């Protein structure tokens, strides 16, 4: 590896001092394990002994020329080259050259051309299914009974919302108002605005209503009786509760946040209004908060989350479902926690609840599965049943919805451009009743979602893209 680095540098006319520094660094960086291994061999061998003599193989190619004891002439020449290179690098390019560069088109682009479904909800009144697309930034509305034929490339939506005026970007949560079909769509951490559209809106139009939220909103749930809207906040390990019809700068009415809540990168949320409980899915990234001073306070709104981390308090916790009283606020500990290896949870994302049967559905993103637990489950418990397998087409599910009117379970599969429908209670490797696809069958999603940093792996000639 070092030779490769040096070879590349030599070809590029790298300054000698840089080479020396690189070589010295590499020698200093010799692994402890390497040194330990050398020491072990030395101990086992005792004093050096002549074991055998073998002739060197004949030399092919040119041999490096020996340098004289004093290489000062060569070093001076190299330093001169270094200075020249530095001067050349510092010269300003001509205006023509700059114009040529600014107009240069990319040689390549990695981009998924198809919608990647992230969250899902059914409007049973109007017999429609609504999906958010986290790749092309759209809200797509389909007929509930749409079914993409296997040979078709995709199904066209009935209506769609998208474009700069909509303020839609990386949407991850969705709620359909059962009274009028309004679409509540949650933007994740690039846009601090919850957007609400009326059912009649389409195209590149401004939302009918906007609410300015804390950063990192993910899940949404609405209690229709109390007209309260719950939002999970990833960054702040919190749940903000707003009035359902809050807009613009309205403040939350309640905040659940604190070091005893066990909220750890919360994502999905669902309300059990029958038993008056709230369920939250947590990925497990956790840190403590420290009390804020006026200087550190990011917002002056009431019930606004504390965003100040306590340095060095971070932990990676196992994924969990935490359960709270429906009206929990402040630093309330959970009533129950579902957590542990038997749960099979691996990035539990969206949640749905079957109040009639007392079952909690979990979109288990990295497990490529839908897990179903009893609503009273606690501790390290196995799911009651699991929907998973190649025939099920469940792949990186990030959205799940129970259509109790039609007795159906819907899944948004971020990993394969599909939304799949099953009979409520489906388990194992059950094929879907219907499939809505946004792209060709078996065309995997690229999985790009808010690419931010990027690195180049020179050894494998690969681009590393965290999302």
């Amino acid at each position: 590896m070092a030779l490769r680095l040096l070879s590349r540098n030599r070809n590029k006319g790298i300054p000698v001092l840089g080479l020396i520094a690189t070589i010295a660094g590499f020698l200093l960086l010799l692994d402890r394990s390497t040194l330990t291994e050398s020491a072990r061999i030395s101990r086992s061998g005792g004093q050096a002994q002549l074991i055998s003599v073998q002739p060197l193989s004949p030399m092919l190619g040119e041999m490096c020329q020996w340098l004289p004891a004093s290489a000062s002439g060569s070093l001076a020449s190299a330093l001169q080259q270094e200075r020249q290179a530095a001067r050349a690098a510092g010269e300003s390019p001509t205006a023509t050259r700059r114009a040529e560069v600014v107009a240069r088109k990319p040689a390549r682009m990695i981009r998924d051309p198809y919608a990647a479904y992230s969250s899902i909800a059914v409007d049973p009144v109007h017999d429609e299914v609504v999906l958010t697309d986290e790749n092309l930034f759209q809200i797509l509305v389909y007929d509930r009974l749409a079914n993409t034929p296997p040979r078709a490339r995709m199904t066209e939506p009935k209506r769609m919302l998208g474009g700069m005026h909509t303020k839609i970007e990386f949407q991850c949560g969705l709620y359909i108002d059962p009274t009028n079909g309004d679409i509540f769509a949650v933007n994740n951490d690039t846009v601090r605005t919850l957007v609400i559209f009326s059912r009649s809106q389409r195209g590149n139009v401004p939302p009918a209503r906007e609410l300015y939220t804390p950063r990192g909103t993910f899940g949404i749930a609405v209690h229709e009786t109390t007209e309260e809207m719950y939002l999970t906040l990833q960054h702040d390990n919190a749940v903000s509760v707003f009035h359902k019809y809050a807009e613009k700068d309205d403040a939350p009415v309640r905040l659940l946040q604190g070091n005893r809540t066990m909220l750890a990168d919360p994502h999905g949320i669902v309300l059990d209004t029958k038993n008056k409980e709230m369920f939250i899915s947590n990925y497990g990234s956790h840190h403590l908060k420290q009390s804020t001073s006026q200087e550190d306070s990011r917002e002056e709104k009431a019930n606004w989350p504390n965003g100040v981390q306590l340095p060095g308090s971070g932990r990676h916790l196992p994924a969990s479902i935490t359960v709270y009283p429906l009206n929990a606020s402040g630093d309330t500990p959970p009533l129950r926690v579902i957590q542990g290896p038997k749960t099979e949870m691996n990035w539990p994302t969206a949640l749905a609840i079957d109040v009639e049967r007392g079952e909690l559905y979990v979109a288990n993103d990295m497990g490529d599965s839908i897990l179903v637990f009893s609503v009273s489950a606690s501790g390290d418990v196995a799911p009651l049943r699991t929907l998973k397998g190649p025939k099920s087409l469940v792949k990186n599910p990030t959205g799940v919805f129970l259509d109790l009117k039609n007795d159906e379970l819907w899944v948004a599969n971020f990993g394969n451009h599909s939304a799949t429908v099953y009979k409520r209670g489906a388990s194992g490797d059950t094929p879907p009743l219907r499939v809505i696809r946004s792209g060709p069958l078996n065309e995997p999603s690229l999985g790009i979602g808010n690419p931010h940093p990027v690195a180049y792996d020179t050894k494998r000639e690969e681009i590393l893209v965290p999302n």
Partner: protein
Amino acid sequence: MHGIAYNEVHDEFYIPTPLSQAILTFRGAANGEEAPIRVIQGPLTQLDEPQRLAIDPVHNEIVIAQDRNVLVFRRDANGNEAPLRKLTGRDLRPYGAAVDTVRNLLVIPSESTGSGPDRGKFLIFDRTASGEAKPLRVIGGDKSMISRFSGPMAVYPPTGKIIAGMRGETGAELATDECFVGVWNITDNGDVPPHYTIGGPKGVLQMVRGVALNAKHKELIVTDKRLNAVLTFYFPEIF
């Protein structure tokens, strides 16, 4: 995740996780659900929402950019380990970090603090600067076109080029015609215009994020949040 760095010498890559206040190190060939080979995390680390980082393979160090300071750890630090150095200061709002191993310099893109235009600047420090050390040079100002930083930046030590994405000054959340990737020299000082811009202003980029370099093929790799895409430009002028 807002940072990643690949280390060719040790064939490993590093990722900061801000919500769990950790630095994860993975094998270069890591694939699937593979555990990190090292994790820096705990009270001694002083990690506080670490966002971006840089690797210095020559001096065997990881440089972490946080909200109000820069922490430097041993490359092979593991567990609850204190940083080797901490760079801080009233005007320091790091938005990233890069090390020039040839000139022994540390480049910190820093966002403005307090009142005035929401504008960034490059602070050039001695590589081993610590405490409230003053920068050796500052690149910034109207002509520099350095506005709001968009994501992780890069330095190419052999030519001393600084490469960074700019969001422009509109404050737009979604996209802006003002964004671009700019190239400055590490020897620049003061209000110096970029030597090159690519992808904008008014170009293909809509909301640039991070940059990476492929020296072998003389390419600049750019992520764009609004395009939700990774773009590669042929850009021999950097190399």
